[in-house]
């Protein structure tokens, strides 16, 4: 090969690199491992974690332990899908392109929107994307976010805000939900209003009233939603939202210490040319057969450069595919049953905890699969005591909210049985 190139050594291939910036020693890295040694080393690291198969977990706060059917793993192992990249060449990529088109359809069906992109990084970054869209769609620079929206989402939006030239205003919760009148006042001159349904506390917001409050101020109403809830909860498109966004993890993705997952972003058709990221569209080929291509690419960085609607390139297609497979496996009936099961189990947990003498933080509120409970002591102490009994009882709300140092956010998925919940009650009541 060197002879064909016309050089005498591999070293010579690097002759364009100035001597002053050549690396003069060997990389100080640990010696190479064979596959077998690698398996042992990473197996040891994995064993140092207490995963949810070792400890009964009621952790949620944005990442949920839903059941992932085997068919998801099976599809994701198909090398033709797994090891392809962005479908720039449609004739080589009809499999991925059609899957994305089906994913976009499923997201639009769930959210009641007209257009979905092919995925964003996660449920936080799609919120930042949505703010950028809203700024350019309205020419306004204020973003209103409810305090009952995930703290992770709010932190990411605040990090992006200076570069976007946005001012972020937070509206406090009142007893676990947002007051529509307070939101309406805050929404004056706002580009958009972001609220979460169910919200971070698991409470059901008066979502149609919140969307109306935003619309009254001609701000774009943006609902951050859980796909698993949308078999039982109304679609954001049905109550006046302009955009629907969310964390896709609960549909088809393992917890995986928070990633990789996918964020979804869907909008009414009027925003289609402001969408960030890849979008797949239907077309015909030279023989008149139906096919799929990346479309509306003049929005995107590789064509539009500094005038693009976003810089996103690599996205989360594989994780979105997992979502498509999971939701196809469930079907509409399964999705509704899954929502009802989570909600019913959460109600069972609330009743059990109350019967054991614990108080709910927001007892007046309807919830979905998550709720806040007072532990009667610091959440840290309550967690420590429960973990001694093999139960991780929930997320300490005092991390993010003042005055809730004794409160835990308890998440109940279909993977928790009534007997598991009885163990939670016993662990927190002790």
């Amino acid at each position, binding site marked *: 090969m060197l002879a064909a190139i016309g050089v005498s050594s591999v070293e010579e291939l690097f002759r364009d690199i100035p001597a002053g910036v050549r690396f003069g020693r060997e990389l100080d*890295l640990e010696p190479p491992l064979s596959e077998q040694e690698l398996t042992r080393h990473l197996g040891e690291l994995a064993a*140092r974690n*207490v995963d949810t198969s070792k400890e009964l977990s009621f952790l949620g706060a944005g990442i949920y332990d839903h059941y992932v059917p085997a068919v998801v793993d099976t599809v994701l192992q198909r090398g033709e899908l797994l090891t392809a990249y962005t479908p720039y060449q449609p004739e080589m990529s*009809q499999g991925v392109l059609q899957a994305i088109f089906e994913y976009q359809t499923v997201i639009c069906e769930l959210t009641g929107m007209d257009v979905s992109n092919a995925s964003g990084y996660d449920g936080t970054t799609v919120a930042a994307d949505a703010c950028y869209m809203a700024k350019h769609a309205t020419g306004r620079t204020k973003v209103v976010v409810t305090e009952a929206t995930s703290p992770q989402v709010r932190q990411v939006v605040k990090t992006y805000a200076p570069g976007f030239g946005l001012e972020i205003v937070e509206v406090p919760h009142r007893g676990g939900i947002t007051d529509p009148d307070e939101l309406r006042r805050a929404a004056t001159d706002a580009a958009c209003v972001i609220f979460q349904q169910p919200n971070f506390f698991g409470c059901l917001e008066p979502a149609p009233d919140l969307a109306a409050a935003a619309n009254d101020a001609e701000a774009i109403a943006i609902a951050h939603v859980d796909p698993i809830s949308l078999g039982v*909860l109304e679609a954001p498109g049905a109550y006046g939202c302009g955009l629907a966004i969310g964390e896709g993890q609960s549909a088809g993705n393992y917890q995986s210490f928070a990633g990789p997952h996918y964020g979804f972003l869907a909008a009414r058709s009027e925003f289609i040319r402001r969408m960030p990221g890849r979008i797949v569209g239907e077309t015909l080929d030279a023989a008149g057969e139906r096919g799929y291509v990346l479309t509306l690419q003049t929005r*995107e960085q590789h064509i539009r450069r500094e005038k693009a609607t*976003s810089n996103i390139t690599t996205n989360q297609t594989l994780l979105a595919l997992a979502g498509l497979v999971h939701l*196809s496996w*469930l079907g509409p009936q399964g999705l509704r049953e899954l929502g009802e099961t989570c909600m019913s189990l959460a109600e069972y947990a609330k009743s059990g905890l109350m019967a054991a003498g614990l108080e709910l933080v927001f007892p007046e509120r309807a919830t979905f699969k998550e709720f806040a409970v007072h532990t009667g002591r610091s959440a840290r102490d309550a967690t420590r005591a429960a973990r001694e009994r093999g139960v991780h009882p929930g997320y300490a709300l005092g991390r993010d909210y003042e005055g809730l140092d004794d409160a835990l956010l308890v998440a109940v998925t279909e993977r928790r049985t009534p007997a598991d919940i009885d163990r939670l009650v016993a662990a927190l009541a002790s």
Partner: protein
Amino acid sequence: MKLIFEKSQPGRRGGELPRYDVPLAKVPAELQRQVPPRLPELAEPEIVRHFTELSTRNFGIDTGFYPLGSCTMKYNPRVNERLAMLPGFRDLHPCQDEDAIQGALELMWRLQEELIEVSGLDACSLQPAAGSQGELTGLMLMRAYFADRGEADQRDTIITADTAHGTNPASVTMAGYKLAKVETDARGNVDVANLRELVNERTAGLMLTNPSTLGLFDEHIEEIAQIFHEVGALLYYDGANLNAVCGISRPGDMGFDIVHINLHKTFSQPHGGGGPGGGPIVVRDNLEPFLPVPAVVKDGERFRLDHDRPKSIGKVRGFTGPFGVFVRSYAYMRSYGPRLREMSETAVLNANYLLALLREAYDLPYDRLAMHEFVLSARSLKREHGISALDVAKRLMDYGFHPPTIYFPLVVPEALMIEPTETEAKETLDEFADAMLAIAREAKENPEVLRDAPHGRPVRRLDEVLAAKRAIVKYGFEEHPDLGNEPATPRQLEAQKGA
């Protein structure tokens, strides 16, 4: 083939859920879903067959050679997939107590240390979810750094090269900076004279890929770094092409202050049809205080998440980043160790070998040794035979290869950007070269076969203009619009595909 919705049968489903003996809870009436979402209704065998059929209509690295320039489409060791699925990783919740996530934090800390060594810099954050998010994070760090020095208003401009990936200028705009573009000189380096005209006290920094998207190492990199540092500006290294220089030349030693590393390129992720990726950033110590929170730190023998970083820009993604990506890339790096240098050497050897086989048949705009990739031009084919880079790309499909990146970088007309990576055998490179040479001959002798290509894929050439015009971006069920079935005149934009 049919869409999954067109295979749907009312009442059918993939699987059953557990039924628990607890009272049924109901959503308050005013919040209840009124119309069910029209999700597919299929039994599991039909679901498996549907997605298997989709996979047969797709081409991945597992199918064959995929020299998509600037995307570093290397083979993905299967052990990495197995390791990411270990229950201790797969089923771990990010809000577990610190004692319960020691293995995960140790893996992240070890990966940070490895990336720091490869970069020649001082501190790392794994949080950004992709290269372009790493870019944006890097620009946010610049903003925070200059604000801390009282220079936020003064420094409003970022300089990028005219060869840059589109993400660079897009990130500049999203970060709230003005953009200035520096030209490329006749040897494919940054035009230093032009650069000197652009850099001044208003400059916040430079974003540069080195080796560039032309596959060329910038011969003036030391002078470039000096020009920026003299005015107090910073240098950002777009790590898209790091696969060329691991253990050979480090961005920190070149003078860069901030680097993002595309884990899915250099350190092997399966790319997934478009993602996931990972875009960790590595910085010089003066920028460490501004890195995203939480930081993964080591205290004695324990690992912990440090949220107490008062100067931090904040968070750019949820929790601590795409952990499963970290598992795969850490495993990949550990399988090489210091031999990462050989990885890069082989990538560069493969690229130069392929270039040597092709240089007579296609135009070579910059006649230098390549690094890990090279850019040819189909300009002569276009002028003499009316055959474009797009036609060459489509015809390659008939020979069983994924096309290279085309129409990028923008400074090369009819560009063909070819990156073979180190995981391809010489025989594969020879076969690809034979196909490229055959296509060059076909352009002269039988150009129609190129214009009509591909001939052997599940679909013929597709009409992108029709797709954009009609904007059918979801299935419409009973109201699905009809595009007809008349043969289309397939109009594809002669615009960037790849990178």
